């Protein structure tokens, strides 16, 4: 009996762990999981990272592993804590991931010759920032017009970052300040100490302004204009307030000499384009649409098939979910940008956290993917248009939501093959002869 039990343990172990299971690796303050195909010696490695989200088990890790690539899925030093984020420092974690693969630090990735960055959602600005600095140097991120600057000395210096060989953008944010704050804040707030008090003329949840609690809202052009300008106005005032606090901190005239809490009520949920899907509804030019049958139609304007979500009204009024709990430093570094309106009046290069500004500096091959049932289609078309790279591609994936899953309730379906189509498309792009 004992003999059998001992054998069972040994065999169970050898069977369970003979697989290429994802392995955990600590890369300084960053965390990583390494996903390797069960056969072959891949030459292309992919680094996947966000800003704060847990990407250690992102769907792309296994999907791209299963298509023959080595994938390093990472969490930054700021995972799970937006209040801590100093955006510029995350480039150090991207560097750690690139070096980990290129230098075969684990001994598990001997064949890697090319490293491609995967910028999904908030990973878009993270990866584009990294590559822009790697390609043009720290002068880019120390531009005085930016609200915060990167370091060029000390342990957080960004001097000499190794370049990646390409970037895949997957429903990338235009920038956390743009999507997370500028376009998400409720401009009806007129007193930051009392965000519950709203100006009726800017209240997106007032039926008199066009709100429909049961479905698609319809706002007038006049309302939209003042709403988008109001969002800019509020964020500009918040930025001025934060800079003023920073000034007083620097002068020793604030309760703390280093940093301070910075709480912004009703600042995460009030995306007018979630309520009224006529806003940011599609591309401006005919673009590639990867359809559910895996064919590509590039002859039409691509419209988002997303559905409105009027329930964001409840999120808006809450603290958990509706407010941002930040510090002055994390606000300025990661959540602030200058603008005159929230849609097309943005000073993209006033923040380092700006995909648009960053891709203007990048020359390596880039692929932009936008999800067809979400609201980043036009943003990614802009990224495509602004990208300096000669080798660039842009495709919208039919009927997928931001989580890379099909929207079953959206019109024009089914979209049951779109997820597979998407990963296949990316794999084909990576494998195209001569690209890498």
């Amino acid at each position, binding site marked *: 009996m004992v003999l059998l039990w001992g054998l069972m343990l040994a065999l169970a172990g*050898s069977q369970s762990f003979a697989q290429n299971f994802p392995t955990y690796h600590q890369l300084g303050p960053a965390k990583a999981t390494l996903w390797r195909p069960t056969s072959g010696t891949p030459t292309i490695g992919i680094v996947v990272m966000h800003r704060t989200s847990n990407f250690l088990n992102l769907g792309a890790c296994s999907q791209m592993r299963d298509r023959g690539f080595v994938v390093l899925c990472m969490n930054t030093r700021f995972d799970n804590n937006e209040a801590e984020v100093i955006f510029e420092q995350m480039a150090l974690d991207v560097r750690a991931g690139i070096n980990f693969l290129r230098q075969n630090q684990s001994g598990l990735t001997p064949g890697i010759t090319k490293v491609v960055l995967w910028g999904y959602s908030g990973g878009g600005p993270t990866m584009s920032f990294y590559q822009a600095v790697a390609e043009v140097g720290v002068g880019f991120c120390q531009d005085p017009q930016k609200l915060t600057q990167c370091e060029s000395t000390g342990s957080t210096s960004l001097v000499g970052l190794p370049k990646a060989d390409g970037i895949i953008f997957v429903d990338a944010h235009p920038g956390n300040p743009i999507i997370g704050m500028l376009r998400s804040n409720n401009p009806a707030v007129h007193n930051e100490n009392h965000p519950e008090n709203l100006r009726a003329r800017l209240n997106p949840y007032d039926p008199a302004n066009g709100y429909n609690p049961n479905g698609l809202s319809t706002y007038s052009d006049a309302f939209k204009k003042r709403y988008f300008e109001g969002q800019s106005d509020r964020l500009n005032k918040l930025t001025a307030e934060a800079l003023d606090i920073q000034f007083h901190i620097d002068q020793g005239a604030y309760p703390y000499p280093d940093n301070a809490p910075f709480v912004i009520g009703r600042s995460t949920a009030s995306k007018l384009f979630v309520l009224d899907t006529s806003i940011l509804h599609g591309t401006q030019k005919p673009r590639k649409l990867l359809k559910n049958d895996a064919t590509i139609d590039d002859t039409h304007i691509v419209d988002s098939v997303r559905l409105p979500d009027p329930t964001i009204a409840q999120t808006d009024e809450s603290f958990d979910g509706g407010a941002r709990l930040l510090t002055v430093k994390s606000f300025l570094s990661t959540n602030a940008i200058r603008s005159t309106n929230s849609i097309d009046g943005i000073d993209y290069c006033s923040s380092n956290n700006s995909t648009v500004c960053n891709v203007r500096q990048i020359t390596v091959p880039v692929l932009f993917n936008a999800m067809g049932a979400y609201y980043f289609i036009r943003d990614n078309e802009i990224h495509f248009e602004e990208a300096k790279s000669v080798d660039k591609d842009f495709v919208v994936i039919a009927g997928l939501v931001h989580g890379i899953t099909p929207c079953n309730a959206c019109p024009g379906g089914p979209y049951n093959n779109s997820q597979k189509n998407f990963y296949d498309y990316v794999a084909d792009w990576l494998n195209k002869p001569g690209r890498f």
Partner: protein
Amino acid sequence: MKVAKLSLSILLILGVVVAATASLSFAQSNPRYINLGSGAVGALYTPDSGAYSHIGIVVGHPTSNSLGCGTGWATRGFLALCFNTRYVANETAISWETIILDVRSAVNFVKGQAGITKVVLVGASGGGPLMTTYQAVAQNGSAYCQGPNKLVECGNNVAGLPRADGIILNDSIPGYGINGLRFLDPSVLNEAHPELINSNLDPYNLNNGFNPAGTSNYSDNFKQRYHRTQADRMDKLIDTAQRRLRRAEEGRDSYTDDDVFVIGKGETGPLFRLDLSIAHSTIKPQKLLKNDGSVVIQIVESVRLAAPSVGDLSDLFDGGARLLTLRSFLSVRAIRAKTAYDFDMSSNNNSTGYHLQHISVPLLLVSSGAHYFIRDNETHYELAASTDKDFVVTEGASHTGPPCVPCEQFPGQYANSAINQMNYMVNWVNQPGRF
């Protein structure tokens, strides 16, 4: 490791090269990433040989990254799951009464591994209250963490937790609320302006006994006032948080669910880090695990050094203040107290000493000889209901095990602390008849 020893002999007979307990042939090359759900993640360490003890190890901490913790266990022949909770790196977001669901996920995962028949929880530092909360609720049911005396009650979603079979606490903190209490600077006069202080209670005032270059010496009178006022400040903070939360829930504030709660100088008032006469030793003779691996019984004095540099953080926001919400403060950092050393452990759900009174499984308490939890851990030992319990202080260990090199009187004096401690824990687990 009774079964493993038998297995080992069989494997040797089979010609498999498996050496004794601490052999490098057990080395874990690459831990396996495990998604535990709900934001909790783990790294599974097993010996490269594939053979492991029937006793599985679960290691976790509420907010710190524990994913790198398992090599020591795997090299000694154990399967160890090191996990991070959903609140890793984010104390601001913690609901203590929810966090134990992540321990459940980890326990269930390990219980489900082939050959595992027993599970031992290992809680280092803040992992102490985490693991003891879990086990106390698992043994006593959800009613245990409910009741009108609790600042925050758990829900019935914690009913039916699978029990662990043993617990190891490695330099466990006495509790997040207790630490929250003892780290408060009581000289603060106005919570909105923590820079305004009562100089008579300022721990960094030379006139009160502060020594910026070494050990401070505060008078007994000062200590009494200080520790009493820490409790006073804690009481006021609790009252404020509860009042604001009531207002919120009644719809009379900006939010109805929660709000920010900042405690200036909330981390920079630990008098015991400045004056080493406080919490300096065990009260009774206890086991001391010496650097040569031997164990002696004596009153054990901490060899820690004073940390006057804590004062450098006193004015800061980063490192000096606690950034919480009303709910996370009440759930994690609050406790009812008369002084910093006279408190109601049952008033919150994260007091290690309280939980240990309601836990019966075998318990090992390891304390770090160059840190400041020696007396707390002795108290835990005294309070523990487990009949099979052990307490040992690791000579010269800084918090949770590594040698305190600056504490040494000659080079290498405490060089073996971490290895000795690990071996002690492993031997305790492997004690025949225990598991």
